[in-house]
């Protein structure tokens, strides 16, 4: 798993490549919660190169979503491959997580969150 962290305006973007499983999820967990602790309120996960996710990855995404909600922040997921999207659908996570087709649409989604408040 390769993890890249970038910032676009006030949006923290994590690009995750490879597999997100029990072996690799700790590195991802450390990075995302460091960003949230540092005050990030808009977090975008770019899944275009994510090949595989297990419940270990889902656990971190659920926890991050709950933490961000407490600070009125948002987590947006983008550009999922079909198989990864299926795991989100099986687990029902697609019912409460914003999943956007592309990174560009993901960035735009934060604007709509602001407009709806």
């Amino acid at each position, binding site marked *: 798993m390769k993890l890249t962290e970038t910032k676009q305006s006030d949006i923290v973007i994590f690009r995750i490549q490879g597999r997100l*499983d*029990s072996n690799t999820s700790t590195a991802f967990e450390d990075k995302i919660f460091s960003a949230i602790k540092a005050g990030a309120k808009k977090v975008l996960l770019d899944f275009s190169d994510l090949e595989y996710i297990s*419940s270990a990855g889902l*656990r971190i995404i659920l*926890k991050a979503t709950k933490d961000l909600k407490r600070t009125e922040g948002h987590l947006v997921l983008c550009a999922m491959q079909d198989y990864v999207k299926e795991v989100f659908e*099986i*687990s029902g996570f697609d019912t409460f997580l914003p999943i956007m087709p592309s990174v560009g649409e993901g960035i735009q989604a934060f604007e709509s969150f602001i407009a709806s408040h």
Partner: protein
Amino acid sequence: MKDKSLTFKLKCRMKELDALHRKITEFGRRTGLPAKSVLEINLALDELFTNLVSYGCAEGNEHFVRFSITLKADDLFIKMEDTGTAFNPLACIPPDLTCCLTERAIGGMGIHLVRHVMNHLAYRRCGKVNILEMKKCLAGLACGEGPKLPAGMKKTSAD
């Protein structure tokens, strides 16, 4: 598809997860399984193995798990045998997938994923060994497709 089989043994250590993934991927390539089925099999065995390493192995004892995978015509049969703590995954309460975000718990999600991607699950405890037998139907699948059977069609049994 010709009949094909694979048997391998792993130590119950998380770093063995990569070996599990490699072996299933190689088996899928060798037997020509649809890519989506290989990913689903990977997911199910990953969840079961992670569960075993995380909760089923008492400290101080070396535990092992053996996977036996057999492809017969269009059905894939998988047997998982481990020496961990007695654990019947079929007795797990399914997670509530309808509750809101704040009430949502991650517990049980791994087994839920296993139940979803497999068509048949049967558990028994033999002496000090957990035995979980699984069946995945591949009939009629083209590359990139998977079985979509309702949960009620998944026959399960346990001691």
